[in-house]
């Protein structure tokens, strides 16, 4: 297939240009830097907060402080400068940094109480706290890497879904997204036959197959694009795709 890219797909499916998140955070252009930081925070703040709550068993107020403190450090103290993509994936590096911060919790809390750097990010902790109710209880022996990876996957999938919804709406394919929601997000959706769904939406059963395939394909594409934006190297991108989606690129 002459049109295939090096990451194993037809050229139209996965853009081969790679925008470096870490380089973006170091960019001299304020707009570029802000874009990189937004991407990073958007994907990681909930996993970081939930990880502190679940793995470190912190109450919500200290967890909020630690999450804020973590991102303040990430932005202002040059934590990302020390990240070496040859040694670890970014997700693992961020988790290890969080571990380091929590282990020095007293000092961090003290700094926050003193006012820290005075920068507070507009993070919706209330929604993150609400989500914790629906999460399974985490045992002390649970692998922290797995826990963080699961929350990261939840965050990336959530971001990707919003994007697919928006793009489907823009293209007049809202029904395609509705079918994805029905089958793959809502409980019990899988129990419905294509014929039942076709009757419900007044479409043909073959349309159900096609619309669903389209929405799933778009979801996969967007997840991979988001992952590409959040990873540093081609190798890391492939490994994250494997870890999150189980797909080999």
């Amino acid at each position, binding site marked *: 297939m002459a049109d295939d890219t090096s990451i194993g797909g037809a050229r139209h499916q996965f853009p081969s240009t790679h925008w470096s998140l870490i380089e973006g955070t170091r960019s001299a252009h304020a707009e570029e830097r802000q874009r990189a930081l937004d991407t990073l925070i958007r994907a990681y703040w909930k996993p970081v907060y939930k990880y502190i709550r679940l793995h470190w068993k912190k109450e919500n107020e200290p967890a909020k402080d630690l999450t804020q403190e973590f991102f303040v450090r990430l932005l202002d103290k040059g934590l990302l400068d020390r990240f070496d993509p040859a040694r670890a994936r970014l997700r693992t590096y961020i988790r290890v940094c969080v571990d380091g911060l929590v282990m020095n919790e007293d000092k961090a809390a003290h700094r926050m109480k003193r006012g820290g750097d005075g920068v507070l990010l507009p993070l919706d902790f209330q929604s993150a706290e609400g989500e914790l109710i629906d999460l399974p209880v985490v045992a002390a022996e649970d692998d922290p890497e797995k826990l963080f990876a699961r929350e990261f996957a939840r965050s990336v999938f959530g971001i990707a879904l919003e994007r697919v919804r928006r793009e489907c709406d823009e293209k007049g394919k809202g029904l395609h997204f509705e079918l994805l929601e029905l089958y793959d*997000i809502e409980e019990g959706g899988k129990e419905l036959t294509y014929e039942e769904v076709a009757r419900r939406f007044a479409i043909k059963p073959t349309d159900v197959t096609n619309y669903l395939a389209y929405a799933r394909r778009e979801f996969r594409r967007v997840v991979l694009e988001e992952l590409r934006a959040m990873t540093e190297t081609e190798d890391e991108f492939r490994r994250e795709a494997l870890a999150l989606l189980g797909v080999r690129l």
Partner: protein
Amino acid sequence: MTRFLNDSALERLREAADSPELTGTRYRLVDKLGQGGMGGVYCVEDTELERRVALKVISVPDPDGACTVRLLQEARIIARLEHPGIVPVHDAGVLPDGRPYYTMKLVQGKRLDEHVESIASLSDRLRLFLRICDAVAFAHAHGVLHRDLKPANIMIGPFGEVLVMDWGLSKVLGPSPANDIPIGHADSGAATENRTMLTAHGTIVGTPGYMSPEQIRGDASLDQRSDIYSLGAILQFLITGNAEAIAKPLSAIRVRAMAENPETRYQTVSQLSTDVAHFLDGLAVSAYPESTMVRAWRWVLRNRTWILLLLAYLLTRTLLIFFRPR
């Protein structure tokens, strides 16, 4: 604001994102059929031939490419085994998403473990067992070990077809290059190394309860006697709970097939199936040595029609001698 996804929604989305990318291929996705150790199996429509087939594709993380190698190996092994008891492979290749796949006949039926209750008579169960043996013997004759024989890997079709499925753990026997199957893009030397590595990894070694003791130990030198042990376990599954199955010869067949030491097992599948067939026909079986009396009684039973005719003839002659008018 992003929507909260619980763990099951997360899993469903992962599965959805993992659905095979079929754009630009001759296949159209219909449904997911199941999930194996390393791959998902989907029902797809072959739009050119207008028929439904099963498509198997890797669906687990495969950082070192071991699963890819194994999937291709599996497809090539099945393709080599053209037998009515082995599901035929139609096509193999790489999907637009980069994952290798192969398609095979879509078997619409029930797994043996789900179907067994509907087979009431012992003789029907044993006849079914003989058909499983036929397929496995054919594979052995072509130098292929299955290594994961169990009721869940036997499909019974709507017209009574018996198919041995899931050759994902199969192995090609023999050092001869002619007997070897190239794996992936590797040469035969690399292929042997990969196979050994995959076995040595022990990530997928079989199913407890159906694995031979040497397979559980992880012996590298498994041979067809390991499959014979698994067939013995399937025989045990088929006869358990059947009152007729307490017949000593049948029990002896199972014991011999499942002997701890491979040297004391049946050495070939045909030896095992011959014994089962003999049992069905009321003949002596090699696994159960009989006394002269039992052998004589079995001979009498087998020839009872002729014996009864002879006795009737002799009785008539005797009566004629005594009651003949003088």
